[in-house]
């Protein structure tokens, strides 16, 4: 398995050579993070690739998935939902490797740890073709850490000479000033509900 890859790492890696996106890689994602990861990638990858991307589900088996890939007009493709595949699907997928390798198309195959093992075990040709392009996804690397959040809250308290409690009380009374810093403050306190009340 390659090192941890965040969303930013992926964007920079793929976007640094948008003219050469015709390679496939596997992104190993926790099952509970899968939907959000697909949505985040869909939202951001096209900015770096500079063309639309296709998201194709494998829920109806390997044959249908490969047919959809071949029909897709987009050159960059996200494949996901391969978790319910049986042995026959994985063997078929291995046989389809050369069909994925045609033309300019490339993309990411999003798998859980379990389905990555299945791919490695039952798709030897595919696994050897992928080589080292298997990345373990690091979720939420772009989010502030607790320490960074506290640092920012300290800076805001010094700037306004107010405590976070005072800011919350002011927001509850709809007396919060409209400077952008106060909106940021409420978000850092995870009190977006109070911003909603200001509407």
């Amino acid at each position, binding site marked *: 398995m390659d090192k941890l890859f965040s969303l930013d790492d992926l964007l920079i890696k793929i976007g640094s050579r948008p003219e050469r996106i015709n390679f496939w890689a596997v992104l190993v994602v926790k099952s509970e993070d899968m939907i959000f990861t697909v949505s985040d990638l869909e*939202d*951001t990858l096209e*900015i770096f690739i500079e063309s639309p991307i296709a998201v194709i589900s494998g829920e109806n088996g390997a044959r249908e998935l490969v047919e959809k890939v071949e029909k897709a007009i987009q050159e960059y493709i996200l494949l996901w939902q391969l978790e319910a595949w049986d042995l026959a699907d994985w063997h078929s997928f291995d046989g389809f490797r050369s069909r994925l390798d045609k033309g300019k198309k490339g993309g990411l195959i999003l798998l859980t740890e379990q389905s990555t093992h299945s791919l490695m075990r039952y798709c030897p040709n595919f696994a050897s073709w992928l080589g080292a392009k298997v990345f373990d996804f690091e979720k939420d690397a*772009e989010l*502030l850490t607790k320490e*960074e959040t506290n640092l920012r809250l300290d800076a805001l308290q010094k700037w306004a000479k107010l405590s976070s409690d005072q800011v919350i009380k002011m927001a509850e009374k709809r007396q919060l000033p409209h*400077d952008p*810093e106060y909106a*940021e403050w409420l978000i850092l306190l995870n009190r*977006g509900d109070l911003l909603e009340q200001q509407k």
Partner: protein
Amino acid sequence: MSNRNSWEEMSIEIQKRSVVNTPLEIKSAKNLRAEILKALNIALDEKILLTELHEILKLLKLQASSVIKQKGYSEIMGGEKNSNRNELIPHFKLNNGCWFDFAITIDETVSPAEIIAFDFEIRYPPEISNWFLRFDLNTPNHENDNKNMRFHFHPNNEDIQIHSPPMSPLEILHLFLYGIKIPEKQRS
């Protein structure tokens, strides 16, 4: 058109023109953050930006506060909060010595998502002068919209506010990266 009331009326009109024409609707906070990351990465490749890639990734952060399920308000932060203009606080640095930071608030409870506030500030290198330029978009206020100055800039003075041209955060970022020069006279 020479009295105070006239200026206030004009101010309302100017603000309306400015805010209505500012592109504030976006696909999502993550999408905008990716656009910003791309712009910073290109500026780094062009050697306009001196901040290294690993520092860019450390400075460009996102925070969310959900209101309804996964939808809520998000903050994109570029650089640490720096209200005292302390050069030791992490920020983005340009090859001409200018340095900047920013923060953007996004409402994702509505569709399409909307930028509702931001602040962008750029400063000259301290060895040249204390000059700064800051753009502020305040949160909406349906009563008087912040004395008709919701979207304004500070031209090197905290107490002076001028209506901003209708620039999106990405356009302001590009202004900072490519449009702010230090006159030779000032350098010498």
